[in-house]
């Protein structure tokens, strides 16, 4: 917008620009390029009207492909120290084989961001918490490193940092003695970007992962979940995770 009110945009011009903007934003009924509902100003708090989720189509997940895993490690500064058993892994590919049918799957598993997270229930200090928009996080300021959440998580989603950490990504603070896990890349999604794993998968052309607002009926993820059969891992535990899978 120009500072001078007098010259610059005429009435015709103004109408033209508005029409173009609206047209650019609404391509076809029901599908929008920009998720206007999801856009949140930085001063605004997260709202429980939103429920972030992931949809992973395992039919498109190749065994041996680790694009999401590598992207997550790069984004969050999780480095391998050569000790596989103590290195944190925020996301991993689980290779499955069905005993009865012989069918195999390759499934990326990360924190499932449950609606009723057992890790939040058991945390003695309340460091493990669920944000209003459904993201389950660890408040490392009050985490005492008791590892009870690691015991309680059915998905083995969490890890504890066993050694000093240096050269952290300024967007992702992490340090020794505190428990950590997939954050759904809150530092990205709060600025209307995609989690690193989803972005990497899309960029590489696999398109196996979708991120979006499960509560928004217009979002791609909500429409797919309504249309196709999806499952949750260990749905019998009734934790209602925000991560759903197709093809399992």
């Amino acid at each position, binding site marked *: 917008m120009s500072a001078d009110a007098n010259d610059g945009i005429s009435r015709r011009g103004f109408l033209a620009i508005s029409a173009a903007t609206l047209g650019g934003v609404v391509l076809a009924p029901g599908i929008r390029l920009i998720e206007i509902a999801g856009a949140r100003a930085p001063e605004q*708090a997260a709202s429980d009207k939103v429920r972030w989720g992931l949809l992973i189509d395992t039919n498109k997940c190749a065994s041996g492909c680790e694009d999401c895993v590598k992207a997550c490690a790069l984004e969050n500064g999780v480095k391998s120290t050569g000790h596989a058993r103590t290195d944190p892994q925020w996301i991993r590919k689980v290779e499955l084989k069905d005993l009865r049918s012989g069918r195999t799957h390759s499934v990326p598993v990360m924190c499932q961001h449950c609606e009723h997270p057992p890790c939040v229930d058991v945390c003695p200090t309340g460091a493990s918490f669920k*944000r209003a928009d459904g993201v389950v996080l660890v408040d490392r*300021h009050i985490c005492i490193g008791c590892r009870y959440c690691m015991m309680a998580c059915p998905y083995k989603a969490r890890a504890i940092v066993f050694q000093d950490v240096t050269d*952290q*990504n300024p967007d992702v*603070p992490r340090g020794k003695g505190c428990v950590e896990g997939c954050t759904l890349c809150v530092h990205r999604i709060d600025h209307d970007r995609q989690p690193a794993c989803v972005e990497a998968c899309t960029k590489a052309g696999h398109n196996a992962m979708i991120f979006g607002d499960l509560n928004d009926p217009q979002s791609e993820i909500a429409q797919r979940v309504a249309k196709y059969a999806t499952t949750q891992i260990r749905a019998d535990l009734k934790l209602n995770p925000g991560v759903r899978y197709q093809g399992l």
Partner: protein
Amino acid sequence: MKSNGTGALAGRIARAICLLALLLPVLAFASDRVPKPVISIDKPGRCVEDTETMRLEHPDMLKHQRDQTMREGIRTRQRSLKECVGCHASTKTGSVLGEKGFCQSCHDYASVRLDCFGCHASKPKLATGAKP
């Protein structure tokens, strides 16, 4: 029962130690072993508040802000720790830590433990690609 002699001697030794302990604060004035803090503002511009306010209240500001950012997702740039580090990191070392680091030199002098940088990056993000 202990004999009177050993008891009295023990009492005298204990009193002497207590007296010496009370004199320890004198050492505070004794030497310049702990270097005075080096406060060098490398980058121009104003801080969030004036110096006196910052000195007094930065722990509370950080604590209040961290809960807002962590638990509510409020990410105003002005009061984020990242912005503090981005501005106050030394242009020589690139960090707020180190002997003459902005945060560390004051904290060393005041003998207050810095817990932040066990987890938070003490160096600003390199300007490659996406902004915070």
